[in-house]
Each structure stands twice: as C-alpha cells, then as structure tokens.
C-alpha cells in the first residue's frame, strides 16, 4: 500500500473573481520508505500539493489517501489529530517556536501526541543527538544558525515517528554548503527511520538524491520517473 495515494486531485485559488488553477488532475502514488522529490519551477504548484498531502488545506476535488486514511473524511479536529500522529513538517522558514528551546520545540509534537514525560525525554534527547545538536538543546531558535534551526525542525518532524515527512523547499533559505548537509542528514535519517520523505525543490542537488521524482509544471504532473537510487 502506498503511503500517499492521489487520484485526480484539483485545486483552484480564487483571487477576487479571478480563478487561478494551481493543480489539475494530479494522480500519483508515493511508496513507503522512499525519498521523493517534487520538482518544478516556482509557481508550478509544489507548495499547494504538499499542503493538500499534509492535510493543511482541502482539495476542490479528487481523492487523497495517506497511510490508508482518506483525508476528506476527516473533520478539522480529526485532521489535526491525524497530522499530529502521522505527518511531520519541515518548512522553508524553519518555523520553530521562538519562545521554546531546541529541546522544547522537539518535545512539542510528543506532548500533542500524549507521550509520557519520561518517554519524551529519551526520544527528544536521542533525536537531537541524531541531528548533531545534543549540545545546543537549551538554546532558543534565536541563538541558533539557520542550519542548526533546520536540524531542530527535522528532529521535530521525525520525533513523533510519522509515516510521512513533508518538506517544502527546506534548503531554500540556506547557503548551498549547509543545504547539502541538510539534504545528506535527511537522506540518512529517512533510511534510518524507514519513513517516506516528500520534498519540493528545484535544486539539482536535491533531485540527484531522490529515489523518485514527481515533475510538476503549471499544476500538472509531467510523467513518473524513477530516479537513481
């Protein structure tokens, strides 16, 4: 069973009476334990598609199934709980909570998922160690570099052991060296945690690292290609 199954998904934005079609007729399957890249130029609909897959927005039509659950069937609260349990997010702007330390940021999804304090402690420490930030866990995001912040964000996305991690241009705000490190880290963690990663990027570096490629252009999927494994 694929982790993500999309059937004829459409999404149109409405700007004052002008209809902006962002996605039309997207059908695709994303396999478990895969590093999948959503490639395409700016404005091609990558963010829109990731938002739909992540249950942050609703499609106009079509069917989105994640880990066997049809998202459309869930109300807002159930969808929130579903995100908490099954989906991790990595954002372009890192989106850490500025008032929480690195440790607390990583701990937060576990609190939402109702994990006990003792279990949280172990998992958060392990996760921060895995992203190489064991020494910085008491620092607030403001005291961390961009690369370090994104590592915290990756730890936060993975700590709840989701089925799927979605990353929308996670390296767009990093220099190419740091970006490469982040990609390598995600690739490694994706293998270690046996989780599906879906990324959006128009960065050749990232595309080269992918198991599967979904090329998007003007809101349509070009064709399914297998990347170099």
């Amino acid at each position, binding site marked *: 069973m694929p982790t993500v199954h999309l059937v004829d998904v459409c999404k149109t934005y409405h700007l004052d009476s002008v209809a902006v079609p962002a996605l039309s007729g997207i059908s695709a399957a994303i396999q478990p334990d895969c590093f999948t890249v959503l490639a395409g130029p700016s404005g091609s609909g990558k963010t829109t598609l990731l*938002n739909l897959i*992540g249950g*942050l*927005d609703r499609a106009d039509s079509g069917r989105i199934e994640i880990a066997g659950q049809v998202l459309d069937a869930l109300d*807002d*609260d159930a969808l*929130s*709980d*579903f*995100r*908490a*349990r099954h989906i991790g*997010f990595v*954002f*372009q*702007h890192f*989106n850490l*909570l*500025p*008032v*929480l330390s690195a440790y607390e940021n990583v701990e*937060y*999804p576990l*609190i*939402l*998922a109702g994990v006990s304090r003792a279990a949280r402690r172990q998992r958060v420490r392990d996760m921060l160690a895995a992203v190489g930030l064991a020494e910085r866990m008491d620092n607030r995001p403001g005291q961390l570099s961009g690369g370090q912040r994104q590592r915290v964000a990756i730890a*936060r996305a993975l700590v709840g052991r989701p089925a799927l991690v979605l990353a929308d241009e996670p390296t767009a705000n990093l220099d190419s060296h740091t970006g490469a490190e982040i990609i390598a880290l995600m690739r490694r963690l994706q293998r270690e945690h046996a989780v599906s990663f879906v990324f959006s990027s128009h960065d050749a570096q990232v595309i080269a690292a992918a198991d599967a490629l979904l090329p998007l252009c003007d809101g349509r999927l070009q064709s399914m290609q297998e990347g170099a494994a």
Partner: protein
Amino acid sequence: MSTLLLALRNLLRNRRRSLATLLTMVVGLTAILLFGGYRSNIQYGSLTGFVQFTGHLQVQRSGYFEEGSDNPAAYGIRDYAALMARLRQDAQLGPLLNEVTPALQLGGIAGRFAANVSRSVLVNGVDAAARNRMLRWNEYGVVSYAQPLALEDRTADSVVVGQGVARKLRLCGLLPVGMPCTQPAADSNTSHGGSDNTPAELAALSQQEAVPAGAGAAANRIELLAASQRGAPNVASLRVVKATNMGIKALDDLYMAMHLQQAQALVYGRDTPQVTAILLQLHRTADIDKARPRIRTLLAQHGGGQDLTVLDFRQLNPMYEQTSQFMDSMFGFIAMLIGVIVLFTLGNTMSSAVVERTSEIGTLRALGLRRAGIRRLFLCEALLLGLAGVVLGVLAALAVAALINNSGWRWTPPGYAYAYLILVRVGQDLPLLLGSVSGMLGVTLLSAWWPARRAARQQIVDALRHS
C-alpha cells in the same frame, strides 16, 4: 501545562506591552476596590448608626410612621410591657434579639424663660440603659460615632438635647468650646432667676457635664410644653444635662431625649401609660427576614386586637436607602467605566499578539494542535495577565486602603453635622473583593474571546504564508 508555559513565555516576550496592559488592570482594579471600600464603609457605617439608634425593626401602630409621629395620643400601643415580654420569650425570636425596648415620641416646645427663647423639639422618651446597650451594637466592626446617652442613672427630670437645640436655646455652656452660640441677651438686662446667669457660672457649665444638680444647674433648666392625651397642654420642668452631636443636622436641631416615665407622664398623666414604638435590635442584620414574619405572627396572637405593623430600619430611615442607592450607582458607573477601559486595552493587546504570531499559529496547527488549542492558548495568556492584574490590584488596593485608613482624613457629608473619618473597607468586604476580582477576570476572558476566536479560525495555509 504546555499551554500555560507557552502562554507565559509569550507574555514575557513582549514585556513592555504586557506590563502596560497589566498596569491598566492593576490601576483599574485598585480604583474599583478603593471606591468600593469607601462605599462599603459609608454603607456599613450608616447602617450601624441607624441600627444603633432605631433598632433593626420597630413595632408601631399602623399609620403612625406616615401620619402620627407627633401625635402619640392617637397611636399609642397598649399593654406594651406584656407584648415585649412575649417577643423576648419567644423560642424562635428570642435568640435573634439583642435588645427590645419601648419608646414614646412626641412633639413639644422647649422654652428657656431665662433667655427668652423657645424651640420646637421632637422628644424621645427612652429607657436609657437599654438604649446605651443598643448603641454598643457593632456587627460590622465599623468606627462607631455613637456617644452614650447621658441619661443613664440621672434624675427623672434630666434631658439630653441635640447641639442644634442647645444652640437655639442658648445653652452655650453645654456646647463645645469654639462652637458659635449667641449668649442670652436677657442675661445682662433682666434677671429672672436671681444671680444664676453670671458669665463665670456659664463658663463653669462647660465642664459641668458630670456634675449633678448643683450650683450652676439652674442655668440649664428648661420648660417643655406638650399636649396631653386629652388635648390639654402640659408643662414639665426639665434639666438639660448634655448637648450631643446627632450627626444629621436636621435631627440635631430637633432632638431631645428624656426618661420614658417622664415622657409618659407628660402625655398620659395618671392614665395607663403607652408607647409609640417597640424597638427590636437583632444580633445580626441578616436575621431581619427571619424575625419579621415571626414578629407579625406574635403580634397577631398577642397584640390584643391593636392594628400593629412592623417596620425595618430601611423604612424608618429613608436616607439609608437613598445614600446606599446613590453610592451603588456611583460604584456601578465607575466599575463599568473601568471595565470598558480594561476590555479595550486587553482586547487590543490580544489582537496585536494574534496578528504578530500568525505564522506561529499556522505552525502549531500544522503540528496537530486543534482549533480549540489555539483558542485556549490565547485565553490562557489573557487569563494569566488577568490573574497577575488581580493579585497585584488587590495588594495595591489593600496597601492604599491602609494608607488612607491611617491618614486620619475627615470630611462632613452633606446634611451631616459631624466630620467623619475617611475610611475604606477593602479587606473586610468579601463580596466586594470577590465581585471585583471575578468581574475583572470575566472582563479579561471577554476581551480575549474575539482575538482568540479569530486566531483559531484562521486557515492554516494562510497563516503559514505569513512567515
């Protein structure tokens, strides 16, 4: 717990704004509590004064209060002693009672031939010992201005008058030093009673309060003219032993107290004496509603067919209700004004917080926090501010109240003849404290409600785009 932590950290993040909002709440609550404490002091103070003076409840003949205050003959209560005994001994009513005492009120004209002056007065025939016990009642622990009635253990012809009456009768020696008083013009010219009006003797009178009938006592003799039950004029020769400040000026200018027997002799002569009221003072004001129906029942059973009615101190002293209502409406107005100010200040603070943190709201929602969680976060933030404001506000109010209460400031309320201490009852007034505190917290939640709701209702993708 994570909500609380997040809320607290977010408040500390924008310290200046949080402090400004907090200050508004603290100042607002302090103002409400101080004015409320001032109102409370006036209300409990005047309640205590009235209850000390008139009791909680009075049994009177129907219509007496409206029509007959100066016509005791028509509104006398027969067999009052037996009736009082019934009230006292009743198993239900008895334990509630602090004092039961009769009173006879009549109008008369007091004259001082030595000074060629006369003055109409309202005479209260009282049991002085019982009245003095009533004056010691102080359920609410207020500063009591009651001075004991100087009739206790005095001769049968002794009377006490208001200072206004003393001034009108030119009993200057009985007035406090420095109070304006016209010396009797007649003194130097015509000498009615021999040599008893020399200035030296008058001066001595100011210290003669405790001196029994003696050298200068004749100077304080007055005659009282009153109508007897049968309509004939009756005159009594009386001795003024003290001029007392009655607080309310209108009363001060009319008041005269004498022994009940003396008053009864004036009105009823050799007939069976009656009274115009039976005063009942309870231990606790709250028992009025329990006591009144029981008294009614007892009156119906043992009143001997007389048409008797029971009035409470509010009915007997309309001024109490008027003052009370005035203070209540002032308090309500001030509280509402401050409530609105806090509502808008805090509402504005919370709205700004929501706008500033839009992308964080999106992040929290993406991580799986429900709408209700977002709402709770902002309500919690407002509530924390509110709690801090309430705690600091109460402390500030208690501190300022202590300062005011120790300052010794005084003022004379309109219509009063006495300068009262300015006091605020904040700490002792639990309803005021609880009401203001819960009101403030209510306003806090109300002002955060709309911003919190708006935050929770945002579309996640729109919120995330704010980064």
